[in-house]
């Protein structure tokens, strides 16, 4: 018996591959790390659910900043990244991307309570807070701008180091008229906590978010299995459950905007 056990142990450890997985550290509720090192949020929980399903892999989840995430993924330091990524041609070119999305991203506008801004068109001539450089939100707005050149918006970009809480205060104070951004980053909590006279509009965009996997022969199998796992998790309602837990609603209820 002893003998047998040790043999199975060996084969098991040979087969289980440890995967370096990264997720953003400071994007509550999407994904964040507590001071004692716990990694929480929608994305980490989805990762854990996938990990449970995959027999031959073990995920080592780490929280690192976004530019480090993609740099490390490209050089092979990391194998798998999550972080509310939008699918883009460039990403598909550089990385393996499972067909099945791992989540939804809702983009809303945050405006003063008495504001009549409801759609992107209403932003013409308004003061919009700077967008996080190259973020998905900006891309969405730029795409819209391209289709609607007659409504010229005044768009600015910045590094995104100024936190959303601060941005919402700037709406409240009148410095800016609108803040456009992903709705999964705790805006509701901030508004409530600080008693801001700010409201969120209906989503102006609903998109799918994806996983990114380092391109290498070794990982071809991994992509397949992750894809399969995601499909199952989606179907059995696990993803919706996780969403309820962190966002207070099922993000999968929204139709993806074309």
């Amino acid at each position: 018996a002893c003998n047998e056990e040790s043999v199975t142990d060996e084969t098991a450890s040979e087969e289980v591959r440890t995967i370096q997985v990264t997720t953003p550290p400071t994007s509550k509720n999407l994904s964040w790390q507590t001071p004692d090192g716990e990694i929480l949020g929608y994305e980490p929980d989805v990762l854990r659910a996938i990990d449970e399903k995959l027999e031959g892999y073990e995920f080592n989840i780490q929280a690192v900043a976004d530019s480090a995430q993609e740099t490390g993924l490209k050089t092979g330091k990391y194998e798998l990244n999550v972080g509310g990524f939008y699918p883009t041609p460039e990403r598909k070119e550089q990385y393996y991307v499972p067909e099945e999305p791992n989540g939804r991203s809702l983009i809303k506008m945050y405006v003063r309570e008495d504001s009549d801004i409801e759609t992107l068109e209403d932003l013409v001539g308004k003061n919009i807070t700077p967008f996080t450089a190259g973020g998905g939100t900006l891309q969405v707005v730029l795409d819209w701008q391209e289709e609607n050149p007659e409504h010229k918006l005044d768009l600015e970009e910045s590094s995104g180091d100024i936190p959303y809480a601060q941005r919402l205060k700037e709406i409240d104070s009148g410095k800016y008229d609108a803040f456009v951004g992903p709705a999964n980053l705790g805006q509701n909590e901030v508004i409530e906590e600080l008693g801001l006279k700010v409201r969120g509009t209906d989503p102006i965009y609903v998109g799918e978010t994806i996983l990114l996997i380092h391109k290498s022969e070794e990982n071809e199998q991994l992509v397949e299995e992750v894809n399969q796992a995601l499909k199952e998790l989606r179907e059995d309602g696990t993803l919706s459950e996780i969403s309820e837990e962190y966002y207070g609603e099922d993000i999968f209820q929204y139709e993806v905007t074309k």
Partner: protein
Amino acid sequence: MDAPNTLEIISLLLEVAHVSLIILVVSAVLGLLLGSLLTMINVKDIPVLKQFTVVISSFTRSVPIIIQLFLVYYALPPILANFGIDASNLSATVAAILALTLYHGGYLTEVLRAAYKAVDKGQHEAADSFGYTPTKKFFRIILPQVVPVALPGWGNALIHLIHDTSLVFALGVADIMGRAELIAAASFGMNQVTVFITVAIIYIIFTFLSDGMVRLFEKKTRKYKLDSGLNARGM
């Protein structure tokens, strides 16, 4: 978790102060050694090697630290792998120390070189005339006169280093700045101002200590009364 109050923020930040301190102290020491070595090569005008130091120091001084951190942590292991060196286990902390050492060393090269050149030629002549070996001359005569001139620049370099250690969070190292970001994120950035000001105060204390150390050395070297400077005679 409830949003922590200021006292809790301070204690949370201080919990990881040792991480920042270790990175800081190790790269300060190694950087000083590297800087001294590069300076030596530079002032001795050793061919080829000198060109090499110019390249190193211009690169490490100019490229944003974050890119240097990425280079060491992400790009170095695959490059080394081509030469059969396995560095895939390079930890983020070690990578951070390596990058900061290179940066600090490159910076110090300029400080030390200038201070070295400020020493009067007659001092070299006098030591040479007695048959001091180059090493003896350096340690007994030249270095003590280089130090007072180099101290303020060294102080600057240390402060830059202190601030740049805060970037290692990008690699996932949990230093003070990293912890601060996490605390701020936990409250959706609502307490970011408090957290940032607390961090600033901790850094001010670090620089205060660092500058204090530099001042202490300055006091020690002031006894040489090298007779230079605007108020050499206290006027």
